[in-house]
């Protein structure tokens, strides 16, 4: 979960071009009784703005599946979908004061969700560009250490310590990004960078072995 990432707001409602894959409307994922939901969600949000935790929990549990349905249209991996949902919920939490209960809730919510999805896509694109330009990273190898027996584990073992630890914690031990970043004492963005670079190195090496 990218809670530590800066809120670099995307173009969702700004007219800027959205990355490919982000749909412009939510019509296709919204149920037929969406307007009824809107009134209900607006009421819950109004109570949440006053500090009603029960209403807030109800609201988040109601909107999370809708957000997930949207994120599934943008991201192929379930983990990415979950990240997108959690990011959207975090953004909603942070800017909850900007919702005006006198106005419809769904446009406000979906603007934030779309922003979160676009933001994630942009971060992924930046990370991929980093990987491509990081031609010196392959040279950064370190002494092997013990790792669980998993596909690619021996290759991971040969990576630089920073990549090895990042991959081990997130891919092999199953820790969340937040938890892994906390354990390594680095930011979540830095951890993601290491995971992406490490993954690229592993893929490159496995491809080399296969050739």
């Amino acid at each position: 979960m990218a809670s530590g990432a800066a809120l670099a707001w995307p173009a969702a409602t700004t007219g800027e071009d959205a990355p490919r894959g982000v749909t412009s409307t939510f019509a296709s994922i919204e149920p037929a009784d969406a307007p009824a939901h809107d009134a209900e969600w607006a009421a819950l949000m109004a109570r949440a703005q006053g500090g009603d935790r029960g209403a807030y929990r109800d609201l988040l549990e109601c909107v999370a599946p809708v957000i997930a349905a949207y994120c599934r249209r943008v991201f192929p991996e379930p983990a990415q979908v979950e990240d997108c949902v959690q990011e959207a919920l975090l953004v909603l939490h942070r800017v909850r004061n900007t919702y005006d209960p006198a106005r419809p809730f769904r446009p406000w919510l979906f603007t934030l969700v779309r922003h979160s999805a676009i933001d994630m896509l942009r971060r992924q694109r930046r990370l991929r560009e980093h990987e491509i330009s990081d031609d010196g990273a392959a040279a950064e190898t370190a002494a092997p250490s013990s790792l669980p027996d998993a596909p690619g584990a021996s290759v991971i073992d040969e990576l630089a310590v920073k990549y090895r630890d990042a991959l081990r914690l997130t891919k092999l031990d199953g820790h969340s990004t937040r938890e892994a970043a906390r354990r390594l004492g680095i930011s979540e963005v830095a951890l993601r960078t290491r995971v992406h670079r490490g993954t690229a190195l592993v893929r490159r090496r496995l491809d080399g072995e296969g050739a």
Partner: protein
Amino acid sequence: MTRDEWIDRLVSDLTPVAAPPRPWRDVGVWLVLAWASTLLLTVLMGPFRAGAAAEWLASSRFQLETVVVALASVVTGALVARAAIPARGSARSPLLAALLLLGAWALLLAWAHAVPPFPLDMTGKRAACVLEVLADAALPCALGLWWLRRRYAVLAPGLVGAALGLAAGAIPAIVMQLACVYEPTHALRFHLGPVVICGLLGAVLGRVVLARRRGPVGERRAR
């Protein structure tokens, strides 16, 4: 962390928040403060050009310039506030409005260069009008950024910052038309030019200041 755990964390972090931002009221206050600070600083830095009021009253084109640029600050400011609330407004519209209205001013200046509305001279030129425009715009720009960061959720910090910079710069620029000389070439370079710089600085500052907003906006602790 699972979704349920994440929701638990968000719920446990919930505190009451202040009422939603009121863009029209906020823009009104911002405009009053921006115009007041600009006029005050301009007067403190030196007297207005002798005969400026008479020229303004006598020339409808000079009046039109003033209205266009004042409108640029008002319209852009209002659109900035709307763009800073999710689902309320486009982030491109304030920048577009500012560019259109300031572009119209540039055309009026070009017209004044070709066909002067009244006899032009360099009497009353202020020593550092460029720096004055930049300095006078700094306070409204900083105030706007602070306000947006504290109370709003800016979706496109660069665009909104640029528009805010242009709106803040337009006010001292038109005031300088009365305080400094009225000479179109001079105005284009030293009165309108700094407004463009304000826009660029606003874009950079917007990306730095507005993109880093982290905590719940307007949050107040439960008593």
